[in-house]
């Protein structure tokens, strides 16, 4: 049976983290609960506040607003605590006992994971096709008098050679990007390639002191990719959403 109220989780933080006055997704005061040398950033919410999203009549914009609010609270905790492990949207525990049981069970993973992401920020890098790229423009080969078939074959051959060189140059530029970014980052996570025109979708965990090198690589490789009809986009900084311990199902 679902209780009326539950503890909505935003993030795990180091046990000594402090948080100012912050309001959560439902306007509730957000606090840090401390146990097992870790802190949980949480707020008490009415459960049907979330269950309402499930209503077919619900405004999908409400999910967008909730997502932004969740992200805002995680970011505030991040700024205050220095290191966070964000929870997925909609994670609700029954009560404080459940929260303590959770920390008892998972402190061994959460502690080291917090240390890994400390002093780092997540950056999203996507590369997608530029819309104009698919129209190939070959220099026409002049048709020798009366031999259009030969000219056509020559042109076709030229197109194929160019297409192959183009593919090769692109894949080389992409490998260079991946190699250089990986070097500046301490970890990388693959994204979902949301649309078919996305050829690369990665998140990088980058130490702050390595950011200048990371941005430098982004800019240089981004310019190179542009020459090959590919557009790079950098998003962030993000709290380390993509670099949290995986839950192993019991």
């Amino acid at each position, binding site marked *: 049976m*679902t*209780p009326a109220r539950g503890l909505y989780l935003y993030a795990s933080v180091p046990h000594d983290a402090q948080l100012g006055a912050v309001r959560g997704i439902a306007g509730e005061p957000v606090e840090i609960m401390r146990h097992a040398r870790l802190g949980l950033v949480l707020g008490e919410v009415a*459960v049907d506040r*979330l*269950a309402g*999203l*499930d*209503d*077919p*009549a*619900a*405004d*999908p914009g409400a999910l*967008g607003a909730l*997502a*932004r609010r969740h*992200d805002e609270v995680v*970011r*505030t905790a991040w*700024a205050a605590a220095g290191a966070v*492990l*964000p*929870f*997925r*949207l*909609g*994670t*609700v*525990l*029954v009560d404080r006992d*459940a929260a303590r*049981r*959770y920390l008892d069970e998972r402190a061994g993973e959460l502690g080291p994971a917090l240390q890994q992401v400390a002093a780092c920020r997540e950056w*999203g890098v996507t590369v997608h096709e530029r819309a104009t790229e*698919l129209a190939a423009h070959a220099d026409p080969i002049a*048709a020798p008098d009366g031999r*259009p*078939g030969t000219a*056509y074959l020559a042109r076709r051959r030229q197109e194929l050679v160019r297409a192959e060189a183009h593919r090769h140059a692109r894949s080389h530029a992409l490998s260079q990007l991946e190699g250089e970014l990986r070097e500046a980052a301490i970890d990388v996570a693959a*994204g*979902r390639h949301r*649309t*078919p025109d996305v050829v690369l979708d990665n998140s990088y965990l980058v130490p702050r002191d390595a*950011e*200048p090198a990371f*941005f430098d690589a*982004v*800019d240089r490789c*981004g310019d190179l990719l542009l020459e090959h009809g590919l557009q*790079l*986009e*950098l*998003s*962030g*900084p993000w709290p380390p*959403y*993509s670099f949290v311990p995986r*839950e192993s*199902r*019991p």
Partner: protein
Amino acid sequence: MQNRSTSGSRYATEHRADSLADVLERVLDRGVVIAGDIVVSVVNVELLTLKLRLIIASVETAKEIGLDWWTRDPFLSSRAQGLELEAENRRLRERLDALEARLATGADRLAGDGS
């Protein structure tokens, strides 16, 4: 806020309105997941379930406001698996059309030479 400082890259996207899809992807797909009996069953708390129900409930409205990325997610939508193939088909059709047009031009020229 200090964490919102702009990056030192020319390829940085604005962190505002246009990145709702990025925010959703991160807060719905990533982040720590808790499984087991210590979690309240809010809409079965599995977010995948929540997501799927939202899709069914409001996919049209969601599209209008740009929240439709999951319709192109092969894991969530069987339609998405066809999209890539569709795009390739379209490209191939366009090339075929272009080639046929060129062949027709060539044939006209040949016919012109013959007369």
